[in-house]
Every structure is written in structure tokens, then in C-alpha cells.
């Protein structure tokens, strides 16, 4: 009996110990995850969230490149048939096609929104976190969000736009589309605010060049803004912002060693040396972050880019459309000239039968990259694009001025300035005279210049994910009708022969067909999202 009492006593002690050891058993916060309140505490937390944003941006590049190239005319199917692309090449755009999935972009956008919304919590909590630092992070997040929405607008036209974070399931998740005009206006407002209020710095490091190319700088944000203005057909604003980037003194066209001087009919002719091209290729596309680069999505051997199966594998999806490239790089020279380098832009892009900008590691050696070698960066903006955006804006300003007959001199001033910008790139590349702009005793025709600039854009940014957007931007100008020829001309090269005519008919029928259908899963899950009218099957488009 006594023994029993002792045992009961012992049990009670054990129980007391047991209870006291879980004093926080009424804690309601989840144990296996970090809640928002606990996460956003110090500036280091915000810094690691920023790293997370750039990491999620890396996951977007496959879509960005594919959207920019696969609908256009510069690629043909590689050694393996990618069914989703094959459907596109037959003019079939099903909403279930995973190439149109936009989820990775919205994941990155939501990461940006979280930082923009919650970084102030850390600022309140951490006294060492200055307001300038807070703005630096928020500014970058706003710029990256703007970049991705700009891609979405150019690819889908009207898309859901949210500027606030989705963080828990008490929020209402359905969201209707905003129109392209609304979204672009919002992006312009946002970017002007972060640029004018000095939220984003001009550079991040005095020693590490990768930081100044890999983080979005003020000039990268300005280049993006200029690109948006150009899409909005705000040519004077585009021209002004391009000037700000050009005058920053931070960037220069990557030079190519010139040699082999010849004298022909009294002209002294310089042209690129083969060794110079090899060096140019290495600095721009292998090493990356060169003096010309404004913003690049960074990859290294630990974080490789997603283009191995697209361009490098023995079963690659895509190869250069070499037959069509001839139309851009006519390899004929003025009689009497003998060059070893003829418009190097073709050769750095399409070489050894591959898309060499992505597949190569050296200009001279034909070895294709292996999976672990996929460390080349994705160039979002480089100075050459600022040159051509400014040229395009000037050409349009000239055309507008030319419509008023009295201002012809002003018209020609714009044209000549635009032409000079193109010439800077052509001279560097050793472009052939046959692809040059034809002038009438030095007088330039505005329409010819517009066509010429689009051709220059094609030559300069071959396989850099720009071509489709350049074509659409030029084809949609004014009213989606006047310039539709730019788009229709690409169709025979982007669609299989017996579907070309029907694809052209679709493009002519409705500008909505120039954009992708919204992903089927989102149509099903988001009751407020209406499908792009061309694909909705409702007959209204």
C-alpha cells in the first residue's frame, strides 16, 4: 500500500515535469513554416528575399526566349520534334500548350510584390536598415515586376495585373484582366517613380562588374522604360530616355579590332579582323557582363540556364533557319573588296549548324556546350538596343514631322541621326554594302528607314529573344493594319508551307490572334479571367 502511494507520487512528479516542458503548447503559429511576422525582421531578411527574386527570375528565361523567338521566322525545328512548337508551326494555338504557361513569371512577380509590401516591416524593426536601402530593394523589385509585366503584355496583350502580394488563403484570388493600355501606363508610372526618386542606384559595386550587370540599375530601368515607350508609340519620350542612358557614360559598344586597310576608289575601308570577332564573341556571349551590357540574367556552373535541350543537345529543339538568314545577310561585296569577315552578326549567331550564341563556348572551336557548361547569361538589354530603339523613335518622329510638308529639313535631320546610329552598329559588324539603306542622293525615305531599322534589329539581336516583339511592335504601329505586312512576311518562315495562307488570314482577321491564348488552367481556375477573344470560340473578336 505504501509502495503504491510512492508510485502515485512519482507519477504526479513526472506529470508536472511533462506539462511544464511544453509551456508553449497553446502557440497557434504553424511550427513547420516561418510566418510572415517572423520572417520580415531585419535587412538581411530583405536581402535574401531579393536574392530569391533574382533566383525566380532565372526560372523565367526559357519562356522569355521562346516567346520572343518561336513564333518568329529565324528558327527551324532541330533534330527532335517538340510537339508544342510543332502545333504552333501548324498555326494551332491551344490554350493547353505548355509553352504559353505564364506561372513562372507570376511566381517571380509575387516575390517582388511580397518584398514591396513587407520590406517596410523589417525597416520598422531593424534600426540599421536605412530608408535608402529599403528603397533600393523596393525599387529593384518594382523594376523586375515591370519587366515581367511588359513581357506578358507583349505576349498575351491583356493579362491579370496585381500589384499586391498573395500571401495567405484569406485573400480573394480571382482577378480579371487589365487591358494592355492600363498595364503599360502603370508600368510607366512605377518606373518613372523609382527612377526620378532615386530609388535604384546607378551601380552596386566599384569592383565587381557582375553586380552592376546582374542587379537592375537605374540605367537598366531606363532602358526598360524606353522599350515600353517605344511599344506605346511615345517616340519623343523614348528618344529622351534613350539619351539619358547613352549619356550616362557607363556603357560603350563592345569594339572589334579593325584591320586590313584597303583603298578602293579613294575610300579607305576598315573591317573587322577574324581574331577581333573571336574576342567579341567571347566577351559578349561566353564571358558575359561586357562593357556593352546593361542588364543580364546571370547564370554560372551551379545555376545553369535552361537552354541545353533547346539549342545544344544532340536532340535539340531548334536550329538556325539558315536559308532565311541569307535574306538578311546577303554575302555580296562591292567589287574589288576582299574580306575575311562579312557581317559577323550572322556568324556569331548561326555557326556549325547550331544557334551559336547559345550553343558555343568559342567562336573558333565547334564544340557544343554540355549540360554542365550552360553558364552563359541571358542578355535582357545591351547598349546596341538603346541605339536601335533611339533610331526607331527618331525615324517615327521624322515621319510625323514629314507629314507636315514644311518641316522637311527637320524630318531629314531625324532620319540622318537614326541612320548614323544604325551605321555605328553596321560598321562594327562589317555589314555588307548590299544590305545598306538606299538613299536618294543622300535624302532618306522614312518608310524605307523604318524597314531598314527592323532589318538591323533582326541582324543585331538574332536569337536574343527579341525578334517576335520587334516584328509585332512594327506591325501593330498606329492601328494593327497599316504595317501588317511586316508580320505577314514572316509567316512563310514561321509556319509550315500549307498552313501559311491560313495563318496570314488569321493575323489579318484579328489582332488578338497575334497574342497567345491565356493558359487553360487559369481559365478554369480563375472565374473572372476571360480568354483572349480570338481563342474563346464565342465568335467575338
Amino acid at each position, binding site marked *: 500500500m505504501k509502495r503504491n502511494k510512492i508510485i502515485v507520487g512519482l507519477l504526479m512528479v513526472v506529470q508536472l515535469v511533462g506539462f511544464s516542458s511544453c509551456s508553449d503548447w497553446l502557440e497557434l503559429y504553424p511550427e513547420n513554416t516561418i510566418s510572415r511576422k517572423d520572417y520580415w525582421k531585419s535587412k538581411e531578411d530583405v536581402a535574401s528575399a531579393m536574392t530569391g527574386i533574382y533566383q525566380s527570375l532565372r526560372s523565367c528565361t526559357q519562356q522569355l526566349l521562346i516567346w520572343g523567338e518561336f513564333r518568329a521566322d529565324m528558327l527551324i525545328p532541330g533534330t527532335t520534334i517538340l510537339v508544342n512548337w510543332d502545333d504552333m508551326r501548324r498555326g494551332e494555338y491551344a490554350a*493547353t500548350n505548355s509553352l504559353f504557361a505564364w506561372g513562372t513569371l507570376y511566381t517571380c512577380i509575387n516575390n517582388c510584390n511580397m518584398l514591396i509590401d513587407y520590406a517596410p516591416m523589417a525597416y520598422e524593426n531593424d534600426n540599421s536598415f536605412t530608408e535608402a536601402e529599403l528603397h533600393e530593394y523596393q525599387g529593384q523589385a518594382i523594376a523586375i515586376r515591370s519587366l515581367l509585366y511588359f513581357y506578358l503584355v507583349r505576349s498575351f496583350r491583356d493579362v491579370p495585373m496585381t500589384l499586391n502580394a*498573395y500571401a495567405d488563403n484569406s485573400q480573394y484570388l480571382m482577378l480579371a484582366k487589365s487591358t494592355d493600355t492600363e498595364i503599360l501606363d502603370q508600368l510607366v508610372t512605377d518606373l518613372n517613380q523609382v527612377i526620378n526618386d532615386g530609388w535604384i542606384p546607378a551601380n552596386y559595386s566599384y569592383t565587381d562588374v557582375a553586380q552592376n550587370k546582374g542587379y537592375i540599375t537605374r540605367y537598366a530601368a531606363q532602358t526598360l522604360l524606353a522599350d515600353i515607350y517605344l511599344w506605346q508609340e511615345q517616340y519623343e519620350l523614348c528618344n529622351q530616355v534613350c539619351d539619358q542612358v547613352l549619356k550616362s557614360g557607363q556603357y560603350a559598344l563592345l569594339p572589334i579590332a579593325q584591320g586590313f586597310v584597303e583603298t578602293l576608289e579613294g575610300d579607305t575601308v576598315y573591317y573587322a579582323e577574324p581574331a577581333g570577332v573571336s574576342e567579341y564573341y567571347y566577351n559578349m556571349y561566353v564571358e558575359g557582363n561586357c562593357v556593352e551590357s546593361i542588364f543580364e540574367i546571370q547564370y554560372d556552373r551551379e545555376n545553369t540556364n535552361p537552354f541545353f535541350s533547346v539549342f545544344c543537345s544532340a536532340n535539340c529543339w531548334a536550329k538556325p533557319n539558315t536559308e532565311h538568314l541569307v535574306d538578311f545577310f546577303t554575302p555580296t561585296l562591292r567589287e574589288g573588296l576582299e574580306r575575311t569577315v562579312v557581317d559577323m552578326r550572322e556568324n556569331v549567331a548561326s555557326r556549325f549548324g547550331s544557334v551559336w550564341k547559345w550553343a558555343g563556348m568559342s567562336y573558333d572551336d565547334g564544340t557544343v556546350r554540355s549540360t554542365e557548361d550552360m553558364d552563359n547569361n541571358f542578355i535582357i538589354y545591351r547598349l546596341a538596343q538603346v541605339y536601335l530603339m533611339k533610331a526607331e523613335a527618331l525615324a517615327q518622329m521624322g515621319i510625323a514631322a514629314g507629314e507636315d510638308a514644311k518641316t522637311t529639313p527637320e524630318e531629314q535631320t531625324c532620319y540622318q541621326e537614326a541612320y548614323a546610329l544604325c551605321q555605328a552598329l553596321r560598321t562594327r559588324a562589317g555589314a555588307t554594302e548590299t544590305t545598306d539603306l538606299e538613299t536618294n542622293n543622300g535624302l532618306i525615305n522614312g518608310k524605307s528607314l523604318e524597314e531598314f531599322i527592323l532589318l538591323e534589329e533582326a541582324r543585331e539581336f538574332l536569337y536574343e529573344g527579341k525578334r517576335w516583339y520587334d516584328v509585332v511592335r512594327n506591325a501593330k504601329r498606329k492601328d494593327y493594319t497599316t504595317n501588317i505586312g511586316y508580320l505577314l512576311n514572316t509567316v512563310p518562315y514561321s509556319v509550315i508551307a500549307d498552313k501559311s495562307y*491560313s495563318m496570314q488570314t488569321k493575323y489579318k482577321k484579328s489582332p488578338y490572334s497575334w497574342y497567345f491564348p491565356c493558359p487553360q*488552367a487559369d481559365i478554369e481556375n480563375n472565374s473572372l479571367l476571360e480568354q483572349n477573344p480570338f481563342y474563346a470560340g464565342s465568335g467575338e473578336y
Partner: protein
Amino acid sequence: MNKLSIPTHTGYSSMGYNAATMENKGWEVQGYVVPFKNKDWTISASFNFARNDNRMEDISEYYAQESGDWATGGSYITMIKEGQPLGSFYGFMYDGVYLNEDETIARDANGKKIVTYTAAGNPQDVKMRFNYPADGYEFQPGDARYKDINHDGNIDAQDIVYLGNFMPVLTGGFGVNVKYKAWTLSTFFNFRYGNDVVNMAKLNMEKMSGFDNQSKAVLRRWRHPYEDASQAPSNLLPRAIYGQDYNYLASDRFVEDGSFIRFKQLTLKYTVPREKLTNFFISDASVYVTMQNLFCWTNYTGMDPEVSVSNPLNSGYDNAASPRSKEYWLGVNLTF
């Protein structure tokens, strides 16, 4: 509780959430009768019949109420509506094969040709099309012909109709037991009545769009135009086209009545009388033979109409899972 797909503009693709409440209403009758019994003989019978109505209530608005993409081959549309029964599929009405060029010309409700006018003002026939303008494929002779319900010359979402429902009207089972002295013979049958099954196995074996093995039925496929429709065989299949899915779109061609009665079990059992066991330290002994899945009466053409209907939201597809095997059991029961 379900992992719900949510709109991806949120940055996520799914979250845990209660999708809906399901209400099951119905009735079930069970019975057991002993119509005859004397010293040696006992005859008994048992049965149960059930009818179940499944309805969804409080559906989360994040739950996709409609799924399936009718423009993709073999993708049936299913819908969930609050207060409505579950399990219906929707698709096109299959109407044979376009036998010749003339049949592919679009016609209106009165059978008159739909025409367009050329630049010169002359009428010109138009062909039947699929999902114009997003796709706009012109049907060719030999293609599967779907009923143009609204007679607009275009096979699209507006030609989709109700095709069937995988929930049975009645399910149940019954059996008869006959006992004579030490011998017992028992039988059991189960059945489903009034449910439809999508024969995906047939769809995959007859689609003729890739390099997969196909069934012998594809030997009956269309190979040349039949100018005289009466000469065409009645069981003609559409032509083969590589990589295209126009000929196996979700249609009633693959929806079949899944009603069946299955002879589920037959058991013959001999129980050794106790008086014979007293010397063997055994209190009970019996020997039996059981045969399972002996026979199935059905009009269904696939391997097994008894497809799983466990998930009320997405069931009724026969993907040719291994059919129920015939089983034979020989058993001895000893109790010490």
C-alpha cells in the same frame, strides 16, 4: 480536403482547401428470404439494391467547375454545378465518316450548301471546319464527322452535347444458397445498371495518330473516297492522320452503356459431419471450392465494364486496367 489548383497569377499553382461538400442521398434495400426448408434442404436467397444521388454543395469558387479541353483529342468535358448530380460527360456527336469530297461541304439546317462570295461575286462552297478561327482545320474526306448541332458549318464549343453519366442508376447484388445435408452451394451476382463508361482503351487503340500499337479494327479505316454512299461499309472508321487529333475528339463514339451483371462467385462446400470427427481431435472440418468472376453479361465492348467510380469528380474512364481475373480456390477449414 483537396489540393486545389488556383490561378497562377497569384504566384502559386495550388493550395490546400476544402473543395466542396458532397451530399449523398439515396436508398438501399436489403433482403433475406428462406422460401423452402425441411430436414435435408434449405434454400435461401439474399439481395441488396441501392440507388445513390451524389450532389455537390458549397463548391469552393477556386474549384474548376468545368474541366477538359474539347479541342484536344479524347478530352471529355466534365462539369460540377452546385446542387446538380455529378458524373456527366459532354462532347461531340459522332456521325460516321466523311465518305467523299461532297460530304465535307458545309450545309445549313435545310441541307443547302453554305456559300461565300468570291471577289468576282460568284458563290463558292465552303468546307466544314473545326474550331474556326482559332484552329480552322478544313475537314477532309475520310475524317470523322461530328454533328453540326447549330448548322453553322463550324464544329466548335457550340456543338457540344450531353453524352452520358458514369453514376449508375442502380447497383447491387443478389445470391442464392442451396443447402442439402452436408453440402452447400452458394452463388453471388453483382450488377450496375444505367451507367456510361468512356472506353479510353478503344479510343487509344483506334486513334491512328501516332506509332502506338492499334487494334485490328483500324483495318476497317477509310482509305479511298466512296462516291456512292451506299457502297461504304457500315462499320467504317475514320482515316489515319499522323499527329492530328481531329478524328478522336471526345464524342459519343467512345461512350458506351456500362451496365452489367457479373456472376461474381460460386462456392460448393462440404462440411464433414461432427460424428465422424470425434476420433481425430478436430471439432469442425469443411472442404470447399470457390470460383470467382465466372461470367459477365454486358453489352460493353471493352474488357471490363466495372471501372472504378471511387472519385466522384473524375471517374468512368476505362483505361484498360487489368481485368478481373477468373479465380479458383480450393480450401480446407479445420477447427481443433
